């Protein structure tokens, strides 16, 4: 468990005054919030503060007020148009898909009718504003609201409300060249005041008392503030380091970026010392502080991620600190390719795109004017790096790429499954249906949300199936049973518990990228669900093959065929031995440090 100061650190992000203002606003229903999200009480954080610091980012609601209770607004709008649009509008979808509208508290129908359609937003899962306007130029030229047009006349004229080209088509259509992605990310960065290097030097010196070791750590964001699988792992690692009296100094980009920064910008780094915020510093000032700091022993380092960092500046920091050797975790594939997910154009993984191939030429990520791989070469040349992989499949991909050479490598799985109970099949066809099929975690296309969405839309009315979403995002307006589930260091097994509680038969873990370690796949199996995945899913695919707990299918066409034919019903809990597992977590980098010592 993470030590108490860490929790205080989380709470300090929002001032008492802000919490008071929020409480007085009338938006927040404390009783409802604590009941709806059971983890809040366990966290020990005041509910309103929890919402502002954590819940809001997770997409949670501040109250249980029905969305339909939002006041109808027809300002500047023909009431007839409002009524027609309302008849087909999905408020739940609109507010889930567009959190800014939810936060603004405006009538979503009014918003869509007045400006949402001009901004390219969709009024429901079954209508694409952009597609309709592109496909029917007469509607575009008329300047009429496209959804109103569809409902009032387009539908009866036989016009199509959306394309049937698959979710990948939309991903590709929205994909921008890398330079544009970076420019957009940098355009709206909030200003953060950098501190002087003396302050960092002093903070390090005061934290160094009687430490048995020092580890410099690099992450892609502030793992103490942000919620996610990797962030939870890093908090666990910090706790393990604290237990061993090892000082951890972690660097993260104040402004996260999905690429390593190849510009000449002096990166603004957030620094935490043993999990406590030590301020924001320019990378060049961190170098000065590292030179000035008098470390009692030679620091080692662990790189969890260099996204958002400048590799040369990270090298300068390590050199200034006198580090010679360290570890690099393969949480993703950023060092090998500009797309950390290793996918071509974010739509497919058919092996890592290699220079000289068409796959390389076709990919926006390869066409960038920098290469993560080239940026990382000096780091591997200057330091003795041990590669740590959370799965064999991740290590295999790294080795096959054959572009960056560590001195050694090791597989340390983030967790392992220990069988604790088995339930024999009931073999009652009655208990087989409806088959409970779930998506676990935050909706994200590369994690398989697009495939899940299409599956739900295709089989939502099929009595044989019942669809669930466990995680944040409230189902994104899909006709599914949605349950907010968030693991934290207090109860890391919450997703496993939810899978068992809901008695999910099948978890669709349809990752499009080669997962290095997919925690939800382990959680699903541990909770007794069978996994449905595809050949590209890396660690998920291997896990299914090794445990036999599920199926690996060729593609989405096969997936739909399995549902249409009912073949998938053989995965019902009633039809198979259900194995329940405990999850035993690793000690991450500490495993390796202890082996070395």
């Amino acid at each position, binding site marked *: 468990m993470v030590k108490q100061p860490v929790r205080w650190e989380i709470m300090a992000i929002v001032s008492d005054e802000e919490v008071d203002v929020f409480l007085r606003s009338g938006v927040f229903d404390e009783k409802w919030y604590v009941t709806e999200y059971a983890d809040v009480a366990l966290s020990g954080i005041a509910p309103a503060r929890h919402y502002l610091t954590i819940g809001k980012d997770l997409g949670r609601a501040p109250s249980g007020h029905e969305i339909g209770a939002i006041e109808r607004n027809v300002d500047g709008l023909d009431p007839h148009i409002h009524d027609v649009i309302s008849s087909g509008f999905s408020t739940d979808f609109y507010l889930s898909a567009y959190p800014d509208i939810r936060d603004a508290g405006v009538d979503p129908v009014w918003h869509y009718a007045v400006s949402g359609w001009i901004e390219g937003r969709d009024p429901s899962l079954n209508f694409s504003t952009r597609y309709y306007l592109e496909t029917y130029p007469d509607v575009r030229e008329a300047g009429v609201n496209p959804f109103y047009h569809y409902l009032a006349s387009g539908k009866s004229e036989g016009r199509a409300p959306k394309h*049937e*080209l698959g979710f990948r088509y939309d991903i590709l259509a929205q994909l921008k060249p890398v330079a544009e992605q970076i420019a957009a990310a940098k355009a709206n960065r909030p200003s953060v005041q950098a501190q002087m290097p003396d302050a960092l030097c002093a903070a390090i010196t005061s934290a160094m008392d009687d430490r048995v070791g020092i580890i410099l750590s690099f992450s892609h964001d502030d793992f103490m503030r942000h919620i996610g699988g990797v962030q939870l792992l890093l908090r666990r690692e910090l706790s393990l380091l604290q237990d061993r009296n090892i000082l951890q100094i972690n660097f993260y980009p104040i402004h996260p970026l999905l690429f390593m920064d190849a510009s000449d910008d002096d990166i603004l780094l957030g620094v935490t010392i043993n999990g406590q915020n030590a301020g924001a510093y320019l990378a060049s000032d961190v170098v000065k502080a590292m030179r000035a700091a008098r470390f009692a022993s030679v620091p080692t380092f662990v790189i969890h991620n260099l996204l958002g960092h400048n590799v040369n500046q990270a090298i300068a920091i390590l050199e200034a600190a006198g580090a010679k050797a360290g570890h690099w975790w393969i949480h993703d594939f950023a060092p090998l390719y500009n797309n950390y997910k290793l996918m071509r154009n974010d*739509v*497919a993984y058919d092996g890592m795109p290699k220079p*000289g191939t*068409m796959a*390389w030429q076709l990919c926006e990520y390869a066409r960038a004017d920098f290469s993560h791989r080239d940026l990382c070469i000096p780091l591997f040349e200057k330091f003795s790096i041990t590669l740590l992989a959370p799965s064999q499949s991740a290590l295999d991909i790294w080795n096959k790429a054959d572009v960056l050479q560590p001195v050694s490598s090791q597989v340390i799985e983030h967790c392992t499954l220990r069988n604790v109970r088995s339930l024999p099949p009931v073999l009652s066809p009655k208990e087989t249906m409806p088959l409970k099929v779930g998506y676990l975690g935050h909706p994200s296309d590369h994690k398989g949300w697009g495939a899940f969405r299409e599956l739900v839309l295709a089989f939502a009315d099929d009595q044989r199936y019942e669809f669930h979403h466990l995680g944040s995002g409230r189902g994104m307006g899909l006709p599914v049973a949605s349950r907010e589930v968030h693991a934290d260091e207090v109860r890391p097994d919450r997703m496993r518990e939810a899978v068992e509680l809901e008695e999910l038969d099948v978890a669709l873990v349809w990752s499009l990228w080669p997962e290095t370690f997919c925690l939800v796949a382990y959680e699903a199996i541990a909770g007794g669900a069978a996994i449905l995945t595809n050949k590209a899913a890396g660690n998920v695919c291997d896990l299914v093959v090794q445990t036999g707990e599920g199926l690996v299918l060729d593609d989405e066409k096969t997936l739909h065929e399995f549902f249409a034919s009912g073949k998938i019903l053989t995965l019902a809990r009633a039809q198979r031995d259900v194995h329940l597992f405990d999850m035993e977590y690793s000690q991450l980098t500490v495993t390796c440090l202890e082996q070395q010592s």
Partner: protein
Amino acid sequence: MKTLCFTSFSFSYLNRARVLFQSLRHFHPDWRLVALMTDEPPPGFAFNVSDEPFDEVVWQNELGIEGIESWLFKHDIVEVCTAVKGPYLYKATQLGYDAVIYLDPDTCLFNPLTPLLQLLETHDIVLTPHLLEPETDPIAIVDNEICPLWAGIYNLGFVAIRSTGEGARFAKWWADRLQVYCHDDPAKGLFVDQRWCDHVPVFFDKVHILKDPGYNTASWNVNQRRITIGADGNVWSNDGLLRFWHFTKLGPLGDTMTRRYARDQIVVYELWRWYREQVKKATSSDIPDRYWAFGRFTDGTQIERAHRLLYRHRQDLQNAFPNPFSEGFSAWLQAEGLKT
């Protein structure tokens, strides 16, 4: 095999032709690459062949066509850019090459055409059909089966011949027909250069109908082909390598047809995205949009298709105005109330 490869275009298609020639240079650096141009350089545009990815330009007036101005005027841009293919194909058979290949400017190679050269070891003429299998969907029957019934079974965005034997005999016949009958007139059984080639398997021997789905893939047949990226990073069409794609109708119409028939084949959209980018990079900003030197009279006014058809059908006008681009014919049309 000593090979000459050419395409036919006007300056508005120079960007597409550059992309094609770049791909040809990449896969077949030893081929002679010829740009058959039916146009004149736009004012202010510096056209230097040494800067282009092809070896040579052949202009419309180098084909030995008598009364070239009169002949040009009888055709619109599509008709004339296809009509010149025959005369040049025939001319190319006499230049000492073993094989001559024509590719449309909006095609692009993704793999070498080596298997095609092997076919030309034993065949004199190679054609690719629009469609390889029957359709089942009613709309697809109209678009993809019925359309070739009037436009031609074979897509003449590609043809390959040996420069001797039946290849040369075909080139001569095609050249003769296209000089007189290369018209977009389906009611008369004519669709530019293409419909003529329905005769080829009957009129000529040693013809090979190439049914490899890696060749001449386009919106009209992609529904019968599975386009994928293999573990080798290459592009595949069904179980073979994609040799060349026909990026016909770059723009909204092409997009609509591609969406209709590629459906959820994501690699197809990636290919188009890449192609659009290549064409954009190859575009010279100093060539005016839709430029064509033979689209206007010398007085600067627009030539309508009706003017061309009138001239085509009236021998007296051809006699009176041997150069119909001149102000004289323009003035006559105006005087007759046929031109504003």
